[in-house]
């Protein structure tokens, strides 16, 4: 189990919004225990059969463990602290364009309080073998299995997950770290969780240009992580100084290139795929050994 399990009780902050209402329903269908939604002024109504409250305090009798925050970027910090201050310890932020200083503050505060922040600006987490997810990953791409996928991307992750499923394998935990420069979890944080987790037998890292998270993961894999790891890194063709969509996907001052990441991963024994679709082949090769 990584961060959440089938007993995890989830609330949705911003449940009456487009994303909140659509994805709360998808989560219910997947098996997630969505116990409440928040939307100021809408207390007493229901969304997809989920009771709506005006604020987090009013949901505490439902004993929520986790939240999905889907509110406009300027209000994310307030929603986040409302959750954190009321004792919620797994906080997934769907919203993109969250100011990076807000993220820095939230993420540091949460770490000191042993809370887990997933995102901002990522697809969330799906723990396939527990039949639970928080986030926006499409339900139909998963099959229960032993491959964990850790990714900085959204659509690309779905593509890779589907290719794993289509190849006859399956997933344990799939987690999207988020595409921003500052996010709650790094590859290394999740690898540490997966190290002794029993369901996972192999790991796929889906990285991209920008930052040094992949290099740090490579260091950790080299010294501490014994399960097989394969990877894909997006952005080999990206020119320096340009943001490739994600705020975090930018090569600055010569740092964060795909070459550097691929080299580091290779030297840690991680096979790096040329095409996303090659991931299942690399996995099968690794798992046969």
């Amino acid at each position, binding site marked *: 189990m990584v961060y959440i399990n089938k007993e995890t009780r989830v609330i949705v902050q911003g449940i009456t919004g487009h994303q909140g209402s659509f994805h709360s329903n998808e989560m219910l269908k997947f098996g997630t225990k969505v116990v409440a939604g928040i939307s100021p002024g809408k207390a007493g109504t229901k969304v997809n059969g989920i009771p709506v409250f005006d604020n987090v305090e009013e949901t505490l009798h439902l004993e929520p463990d986790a939240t999905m925050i889907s509110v406009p*970027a*300027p209000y994310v910090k307030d929603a986040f602290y409302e959750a954190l201050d009321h004792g919620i310890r797994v906080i997934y932020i769907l919203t993109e*364009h*969250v*100011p*990076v*200083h*807000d993220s*820095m*503050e939230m*993420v*540091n*505060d949460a770490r000191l309080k042993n809370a887990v922040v997933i995102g901002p600006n990522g697809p969330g987490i799906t723990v396939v073998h527990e039949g639970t997810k928080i986030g*926006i*990953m*499409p339900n*139909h*791409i998963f099959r229960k299995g032993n491959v964990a996928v850790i*990714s*900085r*991307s*959204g*659509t*690309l*992750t*779905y*593509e890779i997950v*589907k290719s794993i499923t289509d190849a006859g394998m399956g997933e344990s935990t799939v987690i999207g770290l988020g*595409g921003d*420069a*500052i996010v709650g979890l*790094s590859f290394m944080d999740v690898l540490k969780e997966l190290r002794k987790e029993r369901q996972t037998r192999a790991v796929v890292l*889906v990285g*991209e*240009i*920008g*930052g*040094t*998270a992949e290099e*740090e993961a490579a260091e950790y894999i080299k010294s501490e992580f014994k399960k097989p790891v394969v990877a*894909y890194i*997006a*952005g*080999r*063709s*990206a*020119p320096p100084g*340009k943001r*490739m*969509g*994600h*705020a*975090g*996907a930018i090569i600055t*001052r010569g740092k964060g290139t*795909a070459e550097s990441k691929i080299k580091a991963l290779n030297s840690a024994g991680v096979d790096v795929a*040329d*095409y*996303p*679709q090659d991931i299942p082949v690399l996995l099968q090769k690794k798992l046969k050994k």
Partner: protein
Amino acid sequence: MNLYEFQGKELFRKFGIPVPDGYVIKAPEEVRDDIFPAALKAQVLVGGRGKAGGIKFANSREEAINMARDLLSQTIKGSKVKYVLVERKINIDKELYISITIDRSKRRPLVMASTEGGVEIESVEESKIHMKWIDPMHGYSPYIAKILAKKLNLTGDIAKQFSELLSGMSRLFEEYDAELVEINPLVITKEGKLIAADSKVIIDTDSLFRHRDVPVNLDDLTELERYAKEKDYSFVELDGDIGVIANGAGLTMATLDSLLLHGLKPRNFLDLGGTDSVDIVKNAFPLIMKANPKMIFVNIFGGVTKCDTVANGIVLAKKEFGIDKPIVVRLNGVHEEEGRQILKENGIEAFANMPEAVKKVAEIYSRISKGVS
């Protein structure tokens, strides 16, 4: 959001960071006759201005007007010079380097200082760059200046000035949601004053809703990128000739990379984002066509954006805008069958597999190129 040097220095003044006397002009005749000898500095958002001849020194108004005229007619690294900063020349004794930026892996602000100012910090050897991190929970503390001042061999009054300067920088960094506040060179004058001879400030674009006073500078975007920004597309211009439309930043990058592995060069990055709208798909085509690509590759993994929506958008675009360039489409994910059916009915073949689609792109591209040569 990159600020021009003169905009950064306006913020510096607000936070008590000393800068040279000066003013910005947009036309040569705006030069006054008060602060000579003066430095005239072309204002551009790109680096390497000095080497490109963007800084000149004048002893009189007449000289300055001529130099300003020259500078205002220049284009530096593709950026037209629209502003010139006129500043009183300072008497440089030493040049230092100081900056605050965000350390992504430590998730906190990083203060970097060096005695090697006036050159690109990337070229300074690591042992000469001194670093201290700011705890984002309690914020900047003055001991950081105390420690760095000693490493820069600053003492007495200069160390005190340095402490005030760094405290001002850290407040600017925090209050204005900066991604970078850099002073290079930070000058010690012969008169014993610390002064910010240059400024480089980058404000987090996502924070602009709370900084209405920060100017929006788009001069570091290409014309096409500015147009795309107006239309609200996540778009980057590249130097190849294959137009790309995909969904999701990661998948779009992966699409460009796949082309490159086949020796093909993309003309652009264009991410449709996560909205299921026929119009967004349709209107991406005129944008791409402005870039005049040799062909277009549409690579979609349907999730929130459904494959039939994309198909309908493509069909409409072809009809409405009369797109005459070859289009290769790959569709997978939600409603992929419906999407492929729609395209088929309109005479467009859709691949169900990215490597095959890329192979097809390569094949068509090679055919077109031969036809052209």
